[in-house]
């Protein structure tokens, strides 16, 4: 099985601070891979290296066995690497619909000159873009918000809009940076289910940074745990969750080995949900 994304031996340092050292991550086709680790472990830095916002000192990034290390960020997006941001990465001055239009940028079928001087092609293409953006918004039931500005929208809705815009870039790999941040356990669980649904319907591969352990356990097929810029451990979510070093990294060395981090309340909820679906 080929991996959609392969990061090999990535290392980056900022001055004297080693942010990442020899990190290797592989994301196989159609899998949701989790990236966990305490604050400052280098998770978002790794994302920035993958998308090209940072240039790593060592290592290579492969997208479908193609070395994309020399490519700038926008070219990587055009290849199909979509990405969300920890603090919502939407353009504030634009409406929801316009954000979806911006996100389609690399696929737009007219040149910049045609746009600037009002070429007829640009008008035709704009209509198509609009229809497509509405389609994506419709998928998330956000059509009623299409023309409203982002100001004043609830945080959860903004997160959803961000995911919608990332899908508008037509990615085959989505990097999600804490998609459930700022959400309660209920909402987080719901978003996890949505992600699974999206993966199924849109054939997406995902790499997600996530702090909600229950969501990681539910959604991810494989988990990498980073700590101090290194891969602490990797494996199936349940194994990683109970890995003594992971527990130590999160809770400090004093913590009891092998403590189960999942909360019972969440499990109860999950069962309830299942009972609801199956008649």
């Amino acid at each position: 099985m080929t991996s959609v994304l392969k990061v090999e031996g990535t290392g980056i340092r900022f001055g004297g601070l080693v942010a990442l050292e020899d990190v290797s991550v592989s994301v196989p086709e159609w899998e949701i891979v989790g990236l966990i680790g305490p604050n400052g472990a280098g998770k978002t830095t790794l994302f920035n290296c993958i998308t090209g916002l940072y240039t790593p000192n060592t290592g290579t990034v492969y997208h479908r066995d193609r070395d994309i290390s020399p490519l700038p960020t926008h070219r990587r997006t055009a290849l199909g690497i979509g990405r969300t941001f920890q603090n919502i990465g939407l353009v504030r001055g634009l409406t929801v619909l316009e954000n979806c239009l911006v996100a389609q940028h690399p696929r737009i079928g007219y040149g910049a000159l045609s746009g600037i001087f009002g070429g007829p092609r640009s008008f035709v293409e704009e209509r198509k873009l609009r229809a497509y953006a509405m389609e994506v918004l419709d998928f998330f039931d956000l059509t009623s918000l299409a023309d409203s500005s982002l100001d004043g929208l609830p945080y959860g809705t903004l997160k959803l809009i961000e995911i919608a815009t990332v899908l508008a870039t037509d990615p085959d790999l989505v990097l999600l940076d804490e998609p459930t941040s700022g959400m309660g356990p209920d909402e987080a669980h719901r978003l996890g289910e949505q992600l699974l649904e999206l993966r199924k319907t849109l054939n997406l591969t995902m790499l997600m940074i996530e702090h909600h352990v229950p969501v990681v356990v539910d959604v991810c097929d494989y988990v990498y745990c980073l700590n101090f810029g290194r891969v602490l451990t990797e494996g199936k979510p349940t194994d990683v969750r109970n890995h003594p070093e992971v527990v130590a990294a999160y809770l400090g060395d004093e913590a009891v080995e092998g403590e189960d981090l999942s909360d019972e309340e969440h499990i109860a909820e999950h069962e309830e949900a299942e009972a609801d679906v199956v008649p």
Partner: protein
Amino acid sequence: MATATEVLRPVTTREDKWRPSTKGWVARRAVLLLILGGIVFLTASVEGFWADRIARAAIFAVIGLSLNMVLGYIGQVSLGHQAFVGIAAFIAAYYATEKAGCEFEGCSMSTFITSTVFAALSGAIAAGVLGLVALRIRGLYLALITLAYGLVSQNSIFEISFLTRGGAGMPAVRPDGWVGDHAFAFLTLIFLAGVIFVDWSMMRSKVGRAILSVKHSEPVAASYGINVTGYKIIAFVLSGLFAGVAGSLLAFRNQNVVANDFSFVETLTWVLMVVVGGLGNRVGVIIGSAFFAMFGFILEPVLHWLGGLWGPLHFLEEAGAQAYVVIIVGAALAIFTIIEYPGGIGQQVSPITRWLGGQRFSMHPDGHGKHQTQASEASKTGVMGRLGLQRSGSTDEVTEASDETAPTSVMERATVMEQATASPPPPPAPAVHPDDEPVAHASGSADDPPGKPDPVPEVGGTDEGPASRKRGFLGKLGLQKNGAAQQEEKTR
């Protein structure tokens, strides 16, 4: 089950999109024509020297739009705009006089156009160089560099004697047929219209959106697939292009280009007029620019009167005092704008411009009223409903929300679905064609009773197959809709 999905589609019409009636459009067009006609009538009917001032106002508006491109759209600072305008003015005059020999033989229209093209190109190149600098430096340091750029060109290029004829100034004869002040005012208005069109066209296209997102956040823009470097340069080059056009017009309006016309004071005035007009607001910038162009002339009699009033105020009557008073008043206006009305004139007139653009007349932009809260409520619960993953407890929530909005709840959709299955069997459609649907439903009114299924399934179901699917996501989407419907049915 595809039919059920199709019936379910009306759930998301753009309900709060309000469009004016035909009458409303007629009224809007009439008011717009009245404004444009008013400008034309004014230009034609006023005395010659006022027509000349209108030409100056139009040129200022072009400069304002040029500066707005840098300050307002891409969010960088330029204090060196007098360099672009000045270089362009000298080049235009130089070409017309020295190369085409207009000084004694008169200037043909084609010469005028050619020299304007040269001027625009030189402005674009000059600004493009600054754009390259702006890639590495921003904020205060960029402001300092542009300032130096302007001052250096003022003291070097504008001192080249074959351009300035040894400081006497390079003459620029107006093109035949457009020599009179009225005619030339119309010529500048035509060019202003062209610049406005390019500005509008750019902002409505992908270029404008890309530039705005680069201003907002470069990492976000890049991760949307936007070439940040490229669009920054494009913004600067376009700004230089407009500045070049303005420079050429200014050269032919003044009929003699001297270096003094392009001093730093001018740039300050231009920056102030863009700020007072409203950064990033086309209409506001044009009004602000025209105001600042006219302000000096309106001020003239006032200053004269003040100067004659009291001995120590005599300096107000001196030549050049006007420009400084404009700067001082402009600065005060700019401070007032920044503190009290950050949107500038553009924000003050926005109810009118929004109305002209086909929205309701209101003091606040659409989407800030009750519509928004309703809509966001729907969106919070909507996705779950769409994906058929309703969990216990949240169903009540949805029903509540849907009392006032479109039929989003599972219950209401179920009614729709039952009615759909009860009605005569529509032809089986394996895939929903996602493209036509929103168009079809956008026209349907928002408060369609949920019991009446849209006629689309009967009509549209037959001629669509998997072959009609579009690129990537859309095709997958078609599948998804069916999947969701099936799942929802299972839930029942």
